[in-house]
């Protein structure tokens, strides 16, 4: 191909003037007097540069040049020209910000080391979340270092520059807006006042165009929003106060996990579960699948999801005096509610506005509004109205939408197949999707805006009325990414960036709400430091209430049940699926089934047996598979798991799995969203058949019951506890000796470690009554201690590396060992009681592991910690064998380098490695490891105290697990500090040590679990 273009060196060449032609013919532009000099014989004769001089200069020149070559090598250490404020090597910096992805809201503190965020913890000062955090939030730091992230914006699938991207969008938008076209913005629930204002301004600036913002929640609370609109006139969610509720009745609401504002509810719930207070809430749960909340309930009744409405109505009728058709447990719940008027809460997880209307009526009847429920202090954590979303899809299908902008949502993945968002989206003339990594929606988009991770972004949030918070970046963007808001500002032709815009918004909106600070800059800086600002919020008062119950009740009675129903739920780790690529969360065992890396059909065990499906699975035992058709969508060869607690006639399947885009390894699980219908979280249109195949399933716990071992788990009922007789609920271990019965701790062959009197004596106390089993501690420990991800195959070989695990035990029908009916004790009851027991190294004072190590690689510190010396360990595994708690973890492979883990362990790529905590050694192959009681944190705490010339205070040091616990079930401290909480806890009458009779004298105490239940009702 010939090139017809001609290039000029300058305007002169283009003009081709005679002067230019003259110059062009000369080699040098200027006149050189060489001829004048060399041509003049006389001048040359008189010049005093002799041949000798020439040689001298030559010699000097060569020597100088060679000397220069001998220069010392340049060290490419690039110092901070100006050292960043307070960034000192080896010293962590903390930034307050928040996590708000439309599913979870959490005020957090980000720990950065050398400028890299490495750990996320709850913001303890936040009045909203009180430092509570869950696994999804504390694992989100890993998503920042995701190899698969977009590194630049894309147009038509090709990487481009932001200038090009923005100018293209701007041009298209200008055309569309000029002709009054349709622009639709689809986002997840946004609580950010600035974003909302910005979108509002965008709409207002183009009055002739049809611009609309639609919120979309994959797990919708539309029913609640609409019911509140009908009952109170506002489409918002109320805020709750579970800590004051003496009676909690949940109908299908997993309020500890997937219910809106679950973190707030979780931390409140724990406050009402302390028997030391003299009272304890009573928790009733009516549900189909055994949820995290249901596993903590005092009274649980399995039922079909189609019966939730009827149960709500039954309670409603009971409260209205119509006591005829209530099941015994429903009756019990209703009576308890009546006995606790104004101190109770009824929650329902249904997405049916009629059911929610009746729930509102019940709470209203009980006088809970204004006491435990506040509609005026609204929560904005779910905003999507299903009808709006459906309307948008219809508009798209009609081909009338010119520009579709999607931010923070993945509708192609999580909208049901029958809504066909993919097809609908392709009809939009332009689709712009902001995503941080390729997802099902972004790969279908014409343009992709590479979005930054939230730890690289500026934003703000207003999760609950009056609670304003700022999202601040803790690292500058790793890649060439821009936020949607920044782009919108640029498309609108405004000055400045989103940061300026947020500041302007705050200056106008939140700054006037207070009078403490006079200058906005001061206000801004203090808020930034604290992470949140408490603005004006609604008072606890009952709003004007419209009772819609009677109409709703008649609608509910029309709900049809079927013989087989399925409930869609969300798992603790994966949530709504927007972090399903996060290996920490995939490897986090489900708190109930303990299954990792998969979703599956959960079935009632009795029905599984009837159908001939395997009821034991995990390790090398495979699950059976079925073909199941839900709402016309068929899943083939999906595994079936026998789940105790699953209501007969129901199945359940977790959403958030089965994402096909952006995975390097195989697709994990099945996309349950695709089978949903109308955003309803259950379906009665289910048919299944055995597929006859096997499916490999990975679980961290294959034995489900505690085998009557009362020294492992201790539990009692509130009545027994309140008698105050310790021997009745927490008897000491006595040993028969020739001197009569002696306490096990008084009989000892060994000399005690001298930790009881001098220095520190670290220990921990875990309250089984507060622990809900959510697994937040597990992922927190993973990220603090660089625990490797090992993947499904290794978990099937029972080799997970988690230092902290949560043992989950189901009750069995013969409970006592006296019967010696071990066979029956191995199988859980069909509707079991559940205990969650966090388990990690117990730091025994007389540690069985320490005596057996041939090379003394594991020893006792003089502060009571059982410590591992990795570089001394030769890997005989004798310590792990001799550990009665089985908490030691062996490095079976080189997880940092072995091919098998290349796609699994994030630390195998350069980016993923950035999340590693530099204070904790990454362990080599062949080395034993285990919980260190976060010894690096202890050292930091001691150093900080020393720098300030004061003793370490109780609460100064928290372990990763104790700090991550949303219910404060884990207390860490110093037994030698007589005022410490941990000492008090260890001396309480609920305190016991696991298998104390072995004589390990562990430093970890547990508090007996107390159930608020009559002994004969399970």
């Amino acid at each position, binding site marked *: 191909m010939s090139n017809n273009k001609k290039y000029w060196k300058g305007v002169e060449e283009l003009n081709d003037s005679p002067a230019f032609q003259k110059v062009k013919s000369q080699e040098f532009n200027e006149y050189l007097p060489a001829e004048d000099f060399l041509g003049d014989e006389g001048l040359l004769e008189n010049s005093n540069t002799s041949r000798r001089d020439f040689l001298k200069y030559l010699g000097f020149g060569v020597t100088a040049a060679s000397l220069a070559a001998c220069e010392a090598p340049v060290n490419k250490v690039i110092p901070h020209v100006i050292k960043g404020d307070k960034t000192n090597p080896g010293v962590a910096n903390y930034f307050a910000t928040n996590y708000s992805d439309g599913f979870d809201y959490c005020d957090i503190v980000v720990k950065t080391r050398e400028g890299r965020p490495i750990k996320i913890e709850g913001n303890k000062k936040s009045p909203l979340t009180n430092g509570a955090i869950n696994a999804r939030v504390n694992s989100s730091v890993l998503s920042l270092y995701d190899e698969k992230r977009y590194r630049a914006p894309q147009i038509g699938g090709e990487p481009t520059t932001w200038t090009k991207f923005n100018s293209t969008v701007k041009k298209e938008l200008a055309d569309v807006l000029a002709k009054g076209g349709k622009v639709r913005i689809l986002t997840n629930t946004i609580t950010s006042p600035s974003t909302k204002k910005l979108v509002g301004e965008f709409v207002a600036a183009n009055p002739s165009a049809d611009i609309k913002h639609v919120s979309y929640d994959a797990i919708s609370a539309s029913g609640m929003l609409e019911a509140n609109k009908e009952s109170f006139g506002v489409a918002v969610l109320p805020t709750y106060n579970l800590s004051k509720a003496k009676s909690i009745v949940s109908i299908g609401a997993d309020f500890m996990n997937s219910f809106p504002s679950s973190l707030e509810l979780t931390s409140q719930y724990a406050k009402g579960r302390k028997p030391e207070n003299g009272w304890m809430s009573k928790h009733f749960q009516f549900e189909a699948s055994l949820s995290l909340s249901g596993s903590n309930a005092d009274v649980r009744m399995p039922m079909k999801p189609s019966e939730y409405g009827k149960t709500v109505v039954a309670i409603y009728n009971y409260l209205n005096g119509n006591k005829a058709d209530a099941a015994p447990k429903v009756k019990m719940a209703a009576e308890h509610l009546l006995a606790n008027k104004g101190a109770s809460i009824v929650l329902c997880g249904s997405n049916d506005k009629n059911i929610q209307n009746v729930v509102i009526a019940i709470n209203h009847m009980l006088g809970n509004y204004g006491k435990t429920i506040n509609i005026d202090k609204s929560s904005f954590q779910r905003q999507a109205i299903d009808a709006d979303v459906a309307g948008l899809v219809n508009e798209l299908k009609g081909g009338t939408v010119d520009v579709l902008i999607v931010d923070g949502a993945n509708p192609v993945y999580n909208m049901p197949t029958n809504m066909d968002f993919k097809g609908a989206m392709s009809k939009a003339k332009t689709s712009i999707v902001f995503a941080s990594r390729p997802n099902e929606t972004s790969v279908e988009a014409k343009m992709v805006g590479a979005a930054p991770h939230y730890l690289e972004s500026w934003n703000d949030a207003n999760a609950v009325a009056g609670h304003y918070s700022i999202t601040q970046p803790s690292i500058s963007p790793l890649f060439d990414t821009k936020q949607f808001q920044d782009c919108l500002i640029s498309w609108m032709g405004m000055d400045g960036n989103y940061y300026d815009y947020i500041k302007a918004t705050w200056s106008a909106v939140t700054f006037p709400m207070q009078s403490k600070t006079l200058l906005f800059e001061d206000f801004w800086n203090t808020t930034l430091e604290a992470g949140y600002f408490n603005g004006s919020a609604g008072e606890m008062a009952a709003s004007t209430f419209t009772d819609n119950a009677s109409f709703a009740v008649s609608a509910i009675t029309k709900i049809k049940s079927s013989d087989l129903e399925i409930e869609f739920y969300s798992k603790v780790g994966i949530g709504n699926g927007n972090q399903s690529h996060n290996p920490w969360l995939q490897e986090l065992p489900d708190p109930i089934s303990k299954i990792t890396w998969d979703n599956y059909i959960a079935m009632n065990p009795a029905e599984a047996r009837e159908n001939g499906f395997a009821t034991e699975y995990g390790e090398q035992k495979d699950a059976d598979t079925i073909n199941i058709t839900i709402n016309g969508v068929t899943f083939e060869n999906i595994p079936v798991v026998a789940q105790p607690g699953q209501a007969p006639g129901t199945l359940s399947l977790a959403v958030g799995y089965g994402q096909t885009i952006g995975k390097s390894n195989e697709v994990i699980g099945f996309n349950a969203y695709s089978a949903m219908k109308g955003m309803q979280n259950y379906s009665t249109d289910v048919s299944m058949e055995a597929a006859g195949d096997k499916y490999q399933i990975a679980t961290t716990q*294959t034995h489900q019951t505690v085998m009557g071992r009362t020294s492992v788990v201790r539990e009692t009922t509130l009545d027994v506890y309140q008698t105050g007789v310790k021997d009745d609920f927490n008897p000491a271990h006595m040993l028969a000796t020739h001197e009569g019965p002696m306490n096990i701790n008084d009989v000892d062959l060994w000399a005690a470690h001298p930790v009881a009197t001098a220095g520190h004596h670290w220990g921990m106390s875990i309250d089984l009554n507060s622990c809900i089993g959510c697994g937040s501690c597990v992922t927190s420990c993973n990220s603090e201690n660089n625990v490797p991800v090992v993947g499904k195959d290794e978990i099937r070989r029972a080799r*997970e590396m988690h230092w902290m*695990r949560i043992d989950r*035990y189901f009750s069995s029908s013969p409970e006592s060992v006296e019967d010696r009916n071990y066979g029956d004790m191995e199988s859980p009851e069909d509707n079991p009681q559940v205990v969650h027991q966090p388990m990690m190294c117990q730091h025994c004072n007389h540690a069985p592991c320490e005596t057996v190590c041939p090379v003394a690689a594991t020893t006792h510190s003089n502060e009571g910690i059982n410590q591992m010396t990795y570089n001394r360990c*030769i890997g005989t*595994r004798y310590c792990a064998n001799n550990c009665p708690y089985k908490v030691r973890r*062996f490095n079976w492979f080189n997880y940092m380098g072995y091919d098998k883990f290349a796609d699994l362990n994030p630390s195998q790529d350069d980016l993923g490695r950035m999340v590693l905590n530099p204070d904790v050694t990454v362990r080599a192959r*062949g080395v034993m490891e285990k919980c260190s009681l976060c010894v690096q944190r202890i050292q930091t705490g001691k150093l900080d105290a020393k720098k300030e010339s004061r003793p370490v205070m109780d609460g100064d040091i928290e372990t990763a697990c104790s700090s991550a616990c949303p219910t404060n079930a884990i207390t860490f401290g110093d037994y030698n500090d007589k005022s410490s909480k941990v000492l008090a806890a260890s001396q309480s009458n609920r305190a016991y040590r696991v298998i104390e009779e072995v004589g390990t004298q562990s430093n970890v105490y547990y508090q007996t679990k107390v159930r608020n239940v009559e002994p004969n009702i399970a």
Partner: protein
Amino acid sequence: MHQEAAIREPLILGEKSYSQITDDVMASVVGKANRSWWIAIGIAAVMAAWGIGCILYLIGTGIGTWGLNKTVGWAWDITNFVWWVGIGHAGTLISAVLLLFRQKWRMAINRSAEAMTIFAVMMAAVWPGIHMGRIWLAYFVFPLPNQFGSLWVNFNSPLLWDVFAISTYFSVSLVFWYIGLIPDFATIRDKVTQVVPKKVYSLLAFGWTGNAKAWNRFEEISLVLAGLATPLVFSVHSIVSMDFATSVIPGWHTTIFPPYFVSGAVFSGFAMVQTLLIIMRKVMNLENYITIKHIEYMNIVIIVTGSIVGVAYLTELFISWYSGVEYEAYAFINRATGPYWWSYWAMMTCNVVSPQVFWFKKLRTSIGFTFFMSIIVNIGMWFERFVIIVTSLHRDYLPSSWTMFHPTFVDIGCFIGTIGIFFVLFLLFARFFPVLPLNELKTILKSSGEQYKNQPTTEEH
């Protein structure tokens, strides 16, 4: 000359002269190896090569190539270790204890039994080595002076005691065996004619002259070494058993273990000797030296030790109930009825029930049946260690951590490999070493040889 009662059965059958004994023993050394030897060593070498490959893969990749897990940290590795150490015990018992008790029948079998001991201990030593996560740091287990300050080994650890016990046992056994070989090497040296073998055997013979002084010293050192080795027979397996006995794991934490392990070791060791010798006497035409009587004697040892082991098993069961300890009781109920019931009953059948058939003289003098039983006993004893190690570990205190153990091809390959290496070594021994102590046998020819036994002697009158 020592006289033996006429009713004692002769220990050397046939019309043997001194030179015939020499020729019979040397036949394999000077003659050409037969076809069956080549086939046997070929198979053994393939097994060994496969095993070495597996071991290299294991060391190169990680212990994860075995089927171990978070709960079962030892399985085939330590099972094989204890099994091999146990097998080794018979050799020392035969050569040392029977020497002290002047049991002359030991002479036909002690050389090969000792060779078996040496090779078995070598195979045993492989396992603690390769089971380490970081074998390249194995020298950490020795109390070596170092520059790391007060870094020292942990003398509380039974695993460290193992290091000393096994290394002592191995060195004493090796020396004992070698001392015994010296006169026989000298005999071969004197008999062979080829240049290279002659050189090699003369080196091995350490310049043995066979004079009275040398024989006198030989006798004395044998006695001293037997005295040293005898306690080792009991100490080594006692210490190995302490790996388990000193732990806190139900099923391991048992004071009965030392005697129970020692008798189990002798039991399995004799079974392995039977396995080897029954083949060897046939292939090498040594039926006149290793007689039915020898086999019967060994079978009697097997009944006795097997019964001791049986009593130990029953005692364990009784104590687990009598102790009233929930975990202890469960550990044993689980052994018998849990997911590993088949290994427990394999152990019970092979070790306790089946040896009792040796009460029948017809069976204990049957060569074919003895061979069959020797294999059964060795299988049973392998299962005994598997039962102790795996079924105790797989369900201990916290039910949440209960798991199963699933062996991988590497587990199996490494085990087969040690069997292969063992047989390669033993076949080489049978080919190049005097498999019977020919000089010692000559000392009993006149008293216990068949043709001399019933001749009237003039001195009697």
